[in-house]
Structures are given as structure tokens and as C-alpha cells.
């Protein structure tokens, strides 16, 4: 290759022949120097990581994480690696759809749904001994779920291993499954499906008081192996409320009892627990979700009134002292209107609704947004979304 000195001599000759070219040459070289300088810094950083072993550790962790993900997939499909490798991406094992209704005492009612059922059944006994309402989660029956307890403890179980209750029947919490009984002083905070763990980058936790914590899914093996993810709270009185999986390009939203909506950019969230909302003493988080484009947000009050907002109306908050977007006008707040649930839905999704008389109903999301209310026999206690694709696959 011609030496750099020779090239420089040639560039100088150009500058001598046409002085105006000198400016262009200097500009082009300066731009190149800038690029090379940035690249040099990247390489130096990489070199340091290689020298001190950080990179090796990182790769070891990544390998362990991939092994764990493979293990999860094997368990989900009930097969070995060879069969898994041959499995076409769009030909997943057919599965039924399970609706999990669970309470803070770790009791889970699992109903297997079939298309067309509007009324699913009824919880006959006294609803609860605590103030916490039951929660609803729809998952494929071959899913694996993670149970998060208020102490920060986690455990996993296959949905199919949770004993099933009959559709269109009366159920009692006593007869509900108890896959992992809460230990002394702890309650079941939430249940989270984890089959998408290999495709996700973070666990996100939100507490009752709006404290958010992000954890990399590369830590999944350690978390699930040690059965501990942490409470994700700052105050002693606070406790975890919900957990979800997401990627760095996602947005995350949570909604409070008193009608405040907070939108967050996942990529900008800190890995340590951080308060993300300034709320009143009586307020607390009642729902969280990862909104996607083409979805809209539904907010439901105790009386079944539905507020509908488009996805792009979500404002991303950067300040930990944000008060959030107020969705309930002050006059209505004074009248006692409060949210009991919220979700991000598509028109084709279904919504499962649990009312204060224990009835569990299914509604079409577009019917709810169209009418602006949910018809129920009593006050609404809880809602859960059944995404159309989960329903279809089932």
C-alpha cells in the first residue's frame, strides 16, 4: 500500500495547485479523525474489558442465560433440543387457553376457556379476608408462570400443573389450587408468564407506591434459581404489585386508584428501584402494562364506566416527581370515582371481568370501548385482558 507520507505529499500537491481544495481536504480528514477517535475509544474499552476478564464473565453469563432459556423452551414444548431445533417457528404446539383468577393468599382458580363462552362461572364464597381484590391473567395452558410474593421471593410453575376448575360452575377459594403457599408475613403480589423470557431484555417491577425497578433478563437464571428477585421498593411500608417482561424499545405505563397515568421509557429506567410518581397518601397503583402501537388504553372504574385513550396520548415522564396524567376530573374524584383496573388492548381482544357478586364474565374489547361501560351485576372488582392472538392460538 502506498505509504501515508506519499499520500500526504499528493494531498499537498492538490492544495498547492488549487488552494480552495485545502479546506475540503482538511474537513474530510477532520471528519475521519473524529470517526477514528470514537472507534479507538470503543476498542480501548473493549480491550480493557478483555484484559480484566469482564468480557469473559459477560459471555459466561450470556451462555448461562441462553442455556436457561433453552431449558425453559424444552420444558414448554416438552421436548429435547434436537426436536426443538427442527420445530418450525410458526408451528407451536396447540394449547388451550387458561384463565387464572388468583388472590393474595396464593390461591389460583384455573379455568380452561373455549370460544363462545360469555359467562364463565362464579366465585361463591366470601371474596376475601384482605382488601386486595383478586387478579385475572389469561395465558396459554402450556405456559410457565412466575409467582412474585411481597417479600421479593419468586417461584415458577407450569400452568398445566395448576389444578383446573370446571367452566360454568360455582367455585370456592378453598377448592382453588395452592401451588406455592405464601410464607409467614408474605402475600402473592402477582403472577407473570415467562415463556417470552428468551425474547425479552428486562423484568420490570412496580410497587404499590409507584416505585419502578428494572432487572436484566440475563439475571433470570440466578433469580429463578435463587427464588429471589427483590421487592423493588424504597419504603418499608411499600410492597411489590406487578411484574412484566419487556424490551428496551418498549414503553411502560402504570395507573393509580385515583386516576393518574404514568408513561415511562423502558430504556431510560434505572436498574435500581426508583420512585416514579408523587402520589397522595391514599393513592396506590392498580394496574400496569406495556402499551404497543395499534393498541388503545382502557381504564375501568368500580361502577363499570370505561375511559378509552389512544396509545399516542401516553405522555412519557422523565421526572421521579411527576404527578402523572390525571384521567379522573377532580369533581368526579370528590364523588368517589376510582379506577379498579386498566389495560392496553386491541379491538379484537377480550376482557374478563370479575364483579363483586363473584361472577366472571367475558366481554369483547370493541364492545366495551363502543358502549363506554361494562355491564355487571355489581361493582367491578377486577379485569384481565385476553389477547386475540392468545385466544386464536388456543
Amino acid at each position, binding site marked *: *500500500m502506498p505509504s501515508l507520507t506519499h499520500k500526504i505529499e*499528493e494531498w499537498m500537491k*492538490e492544495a498547492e*495547485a488549487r488552494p480552495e*481544495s485545502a479546506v*475540503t*481536504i482538511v474537513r*474530510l480528514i477532520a471528519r475521519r479523525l473524529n470517526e477514528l477517535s470514537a472507534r479507538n475509544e470503543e476498542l480501548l474499552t473493549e480491550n480493557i474489558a478483555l484484559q480484566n476478564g469482564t468480557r469473559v464473565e459477560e459471555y459466561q453469563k450470556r451462555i448461562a442465560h441462553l442455556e436457561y432459556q433453552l431449558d425453559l423452551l424444552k420444558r414448554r414444548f416438552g421436548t429435547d433440543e434436537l426436536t426443538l431445533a427442527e420445530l418450525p417457528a410458526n408451528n407451536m404446539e396447540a394449547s388451550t387457553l387458561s384463565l387464572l383468577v388468583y388472590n393474595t393468599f396464593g390461591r389460583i382458580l384455573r379455568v380452561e376457556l373455549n370460544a363462545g363462552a360469555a359467562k364463565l362461572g362464579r366465585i361463591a364464597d366470601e371474596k376475601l379476608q384482605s382488601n386486595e381484590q383478586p387478579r385475572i391473567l389469561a395465558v396459554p395452558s402450556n405456559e410457565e408462570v412466575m409467582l412474585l410474593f411481597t417479600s421479593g421471593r419468586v417461584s415458577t410453575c407450569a400452568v398445566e400443573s395448576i389444578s383446573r376448575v370446571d367452566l360454568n360452575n360455582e367455585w370456592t377459594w378453598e377448592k382453588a389450587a395452592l401451588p406455592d403457599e405464601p410464607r409467614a408475613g408474605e402475600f402473592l403480589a402477582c403472577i407473570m408468564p415467562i415463556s417470552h423470557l428468551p425474547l425479552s431484555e428486562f423484568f420490570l417491577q412496580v410497587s404499590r407506591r409507584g416505585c419502578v425497578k428494572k432487572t436484566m433478563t440475563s439475571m433470570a437464571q440466578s433469580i429463578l434459581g435463587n427464588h429471589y428477585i427483590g421487592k423493588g421498593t424504597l419504603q418499608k411500608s411499600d410492597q411489590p404489585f406487578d411484574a412484566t417482561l419487556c424490551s428496551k424499545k418498549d414503553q411502560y405505563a402504570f395507573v393509580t386508584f385515583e386516576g393518574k397515568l404514568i408513561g415511562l421509557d423502558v430504556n431510560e429506567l434505572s436498574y435500581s428501584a426508583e420512585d416514579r410518581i408523587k402520589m397522595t397518601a391514599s393513592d396506590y397503583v392498580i394496574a400496569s402494562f406495556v402499551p404497543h402501537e395499534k393498541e388503545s388504553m382502557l381504564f375501568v372504574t368500580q361502577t363499570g364506566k370505561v375511559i378509552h385513550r389512544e396509545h399516542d396520548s401516553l405522555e412519557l415522564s422523565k421526572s421521579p416527581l411527576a404527578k402523572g396524567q390525571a384521567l379522573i376530573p377532580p369533581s368526579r374524584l370528590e364523588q368517589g370515582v376510582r379506577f379498579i383496573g386498566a389495560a392496553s388492548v386491541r379491538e379484537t381482544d377480550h376482557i374478563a371481568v370479575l364483579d363483586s357478586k363473584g361472577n366472571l364474565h367475558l366481554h369483547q374489547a370493541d364492545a366495551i370501548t363502543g358502549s363506554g361501560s361494562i355491564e355487571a351485576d355489581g361493582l367491578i372488582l377486577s379485569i384481565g385482558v385476553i389477547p386475540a392472538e392468545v385466544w386464536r392460538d388456543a
Partner: protein
Amino acid sequence: MGIKVGIDFGTSNSGVAIYNGQRVQLLPVDPKNVIPEVIKTVLYVTRDYRTMIGQEAVETYYRDNVNRQRRFVKQWAGEIDVYGADMHYVRDIFVYVDELKPGRLLQYLKTALRKEGYGGTQIFERYYTVGDLAKTYLGLLKQRAETVLGEPIDSVTLGRPVKFSEHPEQDHKAQETLRNAAREAGFKDVDFELEPIAAALDYEQTLTKPQNVVIFDFGGGTLDIAVMRLGDRHKRDVYASGGVDIAGSDFDRAIIEKRMLPHFGLGQVKLQPEIMGMIHAIPDWMALPELGTPINKNILEKAIHAGTSPIQMKALQNLIYNDLAFTFYNRVEAAKIVLSNDGATIITLEDKDIALWELYTRHQFESDIYHYLVDVEKVLMDTIAQSGLEPGQIDAVVKTGGSSSIPLFTEMLVRIFGKEKVKQSNSFTSVVAGLAIRAFGNS
């Protein structure tokens, strides 16, 4: 009855125009191009033998080919007879074929017409002669022009360089190949006009009194010169014409040979003839795509593994196996064009494992192509001498074609004829406009 158009079948760009006796209409045959009246002379043939030209061909090529997967399979290609002193045996010949290759992009179709020993090329299962390639391109161009005009075209005046080849036989053969290709493409009546004369007819539209004019048509494939008396439409004289096959593609080649090859290992790899062969094939647009065989890949892998200029070998591997050749030639050509106006530019090619960056100045470019200046000046002076005129008797020198904008050649013309006499016509459309005028006159 169909109409007659003029077609400039250029080395790099082509065009179609029609003349109604009053004004020339350049047809927008490539709406996707920046200048819709100019269409790139490139042909893309897909695996299922669909064909496309111009910007559509380029876009499809990029979409389907760059960084695609490859899968080589061994295919029987034929057999050869081997004769020894007292023995004779037949041996099977196999070739490795990339069965995932979605299509082939062909450019410099016009150069192929005059290239000695180049009969055609194999595209998947079919063999395309040079005539087949030209026929396919002209057929598609005709279809586009008919769509624009909304009526059938049955005759054409095609442009041709003053000399397709220095050898009269080869020159005649190239013209007849092009004539047959045009007929097979659907033109019933085909005639030719020399490209510089066509450019002169366009220039003549601007004249108010007769002039002695030199047409300096310097395009992608050839330099064509004509010395003419223009201005009186009833009495045009062609005093002399000449040409040489030096043009834009030779300058691109010079840049690649002198400035780019070191980035792919020239001067560093020695005693490895297979690799040297690959490096020296880079400037040859026809040879480079053929290098992508598993054997060559293995050779390059071994060199990289052995630490033989690994960065350059990796770059060479990427150039060949990631289908970056077309991008690479385009970058070099773009740099050349920039240097017609600016004093310096950069030639870059960045992809996975390739980071080529070269600051290139006009001074370097001129020194790289300087030897061509001597040849060009000689052809020009010979043609002027043939015309019986002295440079002082020339009233105007009309430059046309992309390469005519290169300052080195403009300076030469200014030095010989004087600044006020050197005029620039539209580089890409003056020839086709003249061909349309000629087509009108001949119809």
C-alpha cells in the same frame, strides 16, 4: 402505423426521444431515476428469468442480493477429452453453483458488444449471447417508451460510436449484432447515426449562422469526435470523424487499480497466485462476480487464518461474497464525478468486516489518468488534421457525455481552441435528442 424514435444506447446511461419537426421530447422512461429521461444501462435477470432495467433493476438487485445467504452445489458442467502420448481418457467437469443466487445484474452491455472474445454469459440454466442481452434491454426500453407515448413504436435510429472497435471487422460485427438485437426487440426498421453527429444535430438547433464545430462526445465507453459544418440545415458537412475506446469506465478502472487494490491486499500478498488472481480481477466488472466460488472462499479463509494480511483478505472476501461489487464500482464512479467540481473527495465502502476509506484528490486522479490525455489529444488532433481545418478555424467545440466534464480534458480543449469556443451541452441528453432529430429526418 408506428412511430420512429431515437435511442441512445449508452455504456452507462441510455435514453429515448422523439422529434415532431419543431421540438424534441425526451421520454421519461425511468420514473424512479433522479432524471426520469435518463435510464441506467443495466439489466437484471432473476432466477425465474424475469427481466428489469434501469433503477428498478438496481433496486431489485440491492434488495435481493446484498448480504444474502449462499449455498453452493456441485453441478456437472460437461466433460473434456484428455489425450496423452499413448492414452486417451474422458474426464467429467463440475462447477460449483450458488443455488440461492436470486438473479444477475449486468452492466456495460454496450462494451460487451465490442469486447473481443466475449460471446455472452451463462445466466442460471440459459446462455445469453451479447445480442440476447442487448435485445432484452432494448425490448424493455421500447415497452417503456410505448407506455409513455401510448402508441406503438416500430422504427428506431440508434446511436453508435464512431468506432466500436479499432478493427473494422469487429466494428462491423458489433453494429450488426446491435441491429439484429433491435429487430428482435420489435423494431422493424433500424438505422444508425454516429453519436457525435447526433450531438451536433442537437447543438445545431441553437445556431443562427453556419459554424465549423468539433463535437467531443466523451461518455462511459468511448470517445467520439466529429468535425462538422453546421448551421445550414440543407447543407451539413462532416469533415472528419474519429474515436478511441477510452472513456469513463477506463478511468474507473485506473482509480481501482492505482488506489483501491492495496486495500484488498495488492503489494502485501506475495507468492500466492490464486489470491493475486482474485485481486487483479477486481477492476474487471465481468470477472469479479465469477470469483465467488467455495474454493476461493477456502483459500481466503486459510490466508486469514494464517495471518496473511487478514484485514485486506477479509475485505476481499466481503467484496466478493457479500455482492458488494456493484456498490463498490458505483462508489468509485461517484468519486470520479465529484472530482469534476471539487478538489477532493472520499471513496468509502463500509460493511461487515470491511472499512475502506480513501481520500482522493483531483491531483491524484489527474496523475492516474494522465496517460489517457496523451492518447485523447492525439486522436483529437488527428481528426482535426483529417478535416483539413486548423484549430484556429474551429468556431465551437461542443462537449457532451459524462467524461467530457473532467477538468483535465476541458483544460486540454481550452488550451487548444481557446476558452470562449468550448461549450458544454447537456451531458446525458444531447445525443439522444440528436438521434430523435435524425429519426424524424429519416422517417
